């Protein structure tokens, strides 16, 4: 009842581990893959990258703010880590780069990947992420290059911090993207009132968690109205009801990240709840995709 098909990938349920959360080591990815529909590994670039110094993550009453700075061991080393993936669910490898050719070159390192996600949306790293993902022309060019380099599905992860998320989504679709992921974190910051200083070492970062869910639902809704390709909803999914809400707005699948704060076993818990829900309604989850748009 929970199965969905996403660009040829068969997901046992529509819940995907979001990039950047517990995705640096194969041991945690394997653990989560036991119950998740798919997992996205932490964004990786060609060269190793240190990331920012601590503090890089804050939790506050409505979610998280992070500025990790795309810390990565580099493509070659990370590919060695991912080589031991259990294949209990599809593996999506998230890529970051500053130029279209660089994005394309990354795909060849990861034969174990079932799909690729393009990080066009990290709000706190220089020259990559949102810096390349806010220009529709560049986004289109990146997707064209990556699609030329690989036959696997390619998803473009979008930022809400652009003039029009649909414009960027359209550009990705025109470039040949198999799907879009909406949304990455929303720019934000926090200041400690006693030390009178910004808390994050990078000063500002990206807000995730329950706080951004309505923003994400609206982005998914708008994208569904204009795009033909599938949408993966992300942003504050914490309960099984959130999964349903995103699917009604038009998401084929959802990504879960910050909610791992509440439980390492959240994919199992939500899966069980969704099974109970589908038993009650008698509807397959795939029937719900975009249902709120039907008049």
């Amino acid at each position, binding site marked *: 009842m929970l199965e969905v098909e996403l660009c040829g990938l068969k997901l046992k349920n529509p819940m995907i581990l979001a990039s950047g959360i*517990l995705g640096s080591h194969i041991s945690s990815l394997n653990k989560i893959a036991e119950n998740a529909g798919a997992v996205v590994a932490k964004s990786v670039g060609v060269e190793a990258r240190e990331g920012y110094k601590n503090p890089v993550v804050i939790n506050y009453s409505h979610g998280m703010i992070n500025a990790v700075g795309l810390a990565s061991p580099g493509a070659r080393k990370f590919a060695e880590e991912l080589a031991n993936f259990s294949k209990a669910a599809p593996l999506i490898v998230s890529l970051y780069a500053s130029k279209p050719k660089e994005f394309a070159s990354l795909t060849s390192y990861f034969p174990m990947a079932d799909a690729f996600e393009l990080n066009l949306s990290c709000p706190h790293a220089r020259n990559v992420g949102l810096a390349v993902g806010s220009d529709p022309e560049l986004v289109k060019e990146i997707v064209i290059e990556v699609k030329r380099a690989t036959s696997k599905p390619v998803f473009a992860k979008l930022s809400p911090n652009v003039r029009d998320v649909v414009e960027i989504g359209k550009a990705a679709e025109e470039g040949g993207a198999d799907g879009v992921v909406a949304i990455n974190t929303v720019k934000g910051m926090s200041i400690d009132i006693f030390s009178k200083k910004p*808390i994050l070492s990078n000063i500002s970062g990206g807000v995730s968690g329950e706080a951004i869910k309505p923003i994400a639902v609206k982005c998914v809704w708008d994208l569904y109205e204009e795009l033909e390709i599938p949408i993966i909803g992300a942003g504050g999914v914490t309960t099984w009801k959130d999964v349903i809400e995103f699917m009604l707005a038009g998401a084929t699948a959802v990504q879960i990240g910050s909610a791992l704060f509440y439980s390492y076993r959240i994919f199992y818990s939500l899966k069980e709840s969704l099974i109970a829900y589908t038993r009650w309604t008698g509807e397959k989850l795939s029937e719900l995709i975009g249902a709120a748009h039907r008049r």
Partner: protein
Amino acid sequence: MFSVKVEEVIRHTENIATIFFNCRLRSYPGQFIMLNIFGYEEIPLSMSSSNSVTVKAVGETTRALVNIPVGTLVGIKGPMGTPFTPTNGKALLIAGGIGVAPLFYLHDYLVKSGTDVHVLFGARTSEELIWTDRFKNLEIATDDGSAGYHGSVVDLVKEKDLEEFAKIYCCGPEPMLKALYRHFDEMDVLPKVEMSLEKYMRCGIGLCGSCVLDNGLRVCVEGPVFNAAKLDW
């Protein structure tokens, strides 16, 4: 994150100090805090009592912390993580170097609840054996023989009859913990052993994945204290 003030600093040696805060944190022995030394970094530190951390200068941030002036504001996230579990029977505490920090807290907690506690404290030299008068029932070991048993704390443990202890608690450098693990595995006592592990952390709240072990568990949430039977060394 919230801020507290440094109320007192005990400088044990050139490189090791205990920093006391002006408020007690609701916590259990074995838990850690993410301590933000403004202008430097935020680092994970095991608590050495409900209002202190004991730290050794190994880098820029820990050096600044060892030298921190009384009255300085520091940021705290926590206390977090899985603590030690207490026992009614006899307890054996095994400390290596600065790994003694969480065992100070555990020792006081167990003594207060009437537990019979025996401590083995090992270090390279006698200089690194800090604050030994805080322990009631102590045996020490030094690699260079400058104090107590001449040899590693692991060798000292091998001379002990482990049957009499209901629980064994360990904290120290990873090679020491791995050597202890092998010994306890041979003696078939792993389920009564708890080990406090150290790993580089970014978030401290179970999200970033920096501190994940090969068995998939997170040092910051499922740890830092693990039952040894759950480790796959």
